[in-house]
């Protein structure tokens, strides 16, 4: 019984992930995010030696916003559209429980979001290195990333032309692979073009920051998945964006009144405080994010994830699937 449930879960989650990366909008946003981060150091001017910081901040902001957009679009195409087209009904008419269906959808979309966030973290690390010198660009870091990203898209076009393979999913996969290869290749080459020890010129302190943003993106994805069981893309995206904005200024809006007002305390408690996941300023002056902080933030995210998913399951279980 348990094995059967696991099998159903993995098949549904896998299919959701594949369907998500086959959506042209997912590829469009992924390409935009990664290529923008890749070329960002080349576009900056008059940065007064702050290029690395600007690239880093912009890349992480893009990871956050890109994650929100892709998560919302994926949730709606995977759940909202499937409910309306009857695909969900065809699956729920099989021995698949609604909870399993819901969780598998979330797992499938989360897998795509994790792949995207990983690629963004690597691209951000490469681009930060590219922009780390004043008045000079580290082409040994920038070139492999840009060239391999373009090659990935070209290869996907070729596989589509010769083997009739789906372009969007192939391009997504090749793009992620391209960023990983670019990261590894550049890791062994210094700014002067000479071989160095692995990742000697990368700022690896960026990864914990990206990990925290990935956690926030997963919480936002869970919210989008829960909303998508009842709403279309526009209201889902609007509500998720509003939650992001309110959560970013939660300390100001509710935090300072929380001690005096029960309503403010309640809202401060239930609205995720995204500032806990936005710690990029900790890197200024060569600082880093302690792992204990990441552990606590991870627990905070886990509590929200569990709550949001439990709420989503509870409402989905009693919902009419009307397609």
């Amino acid at each position, binding site marked *: 019984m348990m094995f*059967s449930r696991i*099998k*159903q879960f993995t*098949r*549904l989650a896998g*299919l959701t992930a*594949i*369907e998500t990366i*086959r959506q042209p909008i997912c590829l469009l946003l992924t390409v935009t995010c990664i290529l923008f981060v890749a070329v960002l150091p080349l576009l900056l001017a008059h940065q007064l030696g702050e290029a690395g910081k600007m690239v880093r901040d912009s890349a992480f902001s893009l990871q956050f916003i890109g994650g929100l957009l892709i998560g919302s679009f994926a949730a709606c195409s995977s759940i909202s559209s499937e409910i309306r*087209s*009857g*695909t969900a*009904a*065809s*699956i*729920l*008419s*099989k*021995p*698949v*429980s609604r909870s399993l269906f819901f969780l598998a959808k979330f797992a499938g979309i989360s897998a795509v979001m994790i792949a995207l966030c990983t690629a963004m973290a690597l691209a951000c690390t490469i681009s930060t290195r590219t922009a780390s010198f004043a008045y000079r660009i580290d082409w040994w870091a920038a070139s492999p990333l840009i060239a391999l990203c373009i090659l990935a898209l070209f290869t996907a076009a070729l596989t589509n032309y010769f083997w009739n393979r*789906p372009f969007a*999913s192939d391009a997504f996969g090749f793009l992620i692979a391209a960023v990983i290869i670019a990261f590894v290749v550049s890791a062994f080459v210094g700014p002067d073009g000479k071989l160095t020890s692995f990742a000697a010129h990368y700022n690896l302190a960026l990864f914990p920051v990206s990990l925290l943003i990935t956690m926030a993106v997963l919480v936002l994805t869970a919210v989008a998945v829960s909303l998508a069981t009842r709403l279309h893309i526009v209201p889902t995206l609007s509500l998720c964006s509003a939650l992001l904005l309110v959560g970013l200024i939660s300390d100001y809006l509710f935090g300072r009144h929380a001690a005096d007002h029960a309503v403010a305390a309640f809202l401060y408690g239930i609205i995720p405080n995204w500032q806990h996941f936005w710690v990029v300023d900790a890197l200024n002056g060569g600082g880093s994010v302690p792992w204990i902080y990441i552990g606590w933030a991870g627990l905070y995210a886990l509590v929200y994830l569990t709550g949001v998913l439990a709420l989503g399951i509870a409402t989905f279980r*009693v919902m*009419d*699937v*009307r*397609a």
Partner: protein
Amino acid sequence: MSDEEKKTDVAVLRAENLTKIFRDFWRRPKVKAVDGISFEIRRGEVFGVLGPNGSGKSTTLKMILGLLFPTQGSLEVLGRSPKDVGAKSRIGYLPEESYLYPYLTAEETLKFYGSLFKLSDKEIRSRTDQLLEMIGLTHARRRTVGEFSKGMARRIGLAQALVNDPDLVILDEPTSGLDPLGCRQVKDLIQTLSDRGKTVLLSSHLLADVEDVCDRIAILYNGRIQAMGSIRDLLEERHRVRLTFPELGPESMKAVLDNIRRIAGTEPDLDHPRKDLERFFLDVVAEARKQYEQHSGVSGSAGFAGFLSSDGTREKHPSKE
């Protein structure tokens, strides 16, 4: 097992005072789609639900599948509540609309749906092959479903509904989008399933299809059952008789008619029997197929999938006379 043994009085599906009210965003009642219907479907029966658009057919089917929850009344499917996920392993469902994953190939689609049941990978592969052959899409197994015509997608839909060899098959407009050959095949398949003791519940707008295959029907209008019973009981005009015999010469015919007029005291209707259009079409296509071996789109079916036929072996497509 004889037909009589297969068709038993065991109720596979029982609905009691079933009512469904759809509500708006503010939870106010919006429309009463199903209004207190009660019926029972027995094992081995082919039961048809008829009605115009908006009469509550699809809503009833979705309540049976646990996709919609009744506002009032009770439902029992295969002895369990429709909410019971376990019962669904014995149900096959073909939805009305196109609902397949457009990026999956025909083969991937069937394997995916097969993987939702407790079937081994070997069994899933075997059933996928048999079902693709049965629906005549073996040559298109690697084409994505998004490229399929409506009829081809419908065939894949029918195959996915049968992948678990269900005891209760629920078909919502099964012949929608199919050509007459496909329709005939679906009807023959329904008959085969019924012969195996499977229960079939189908909803259709096509009255001729329902008349061909159903044992009993219910006609819904405005969410209520307006008529229910066996096709024979509902359609037979018991006070009239039709005689069919080879054409006679003018004098013999006159004698027969005179006798009828004298005995019955009324003027009999006289005409030549006609083939129905479906039979005529199938004859023409069968003749054409002999002459032209090659055809495009859907290829000829190789009969029914082995695991669906009565003795477990491949069975040739039975042709109805």
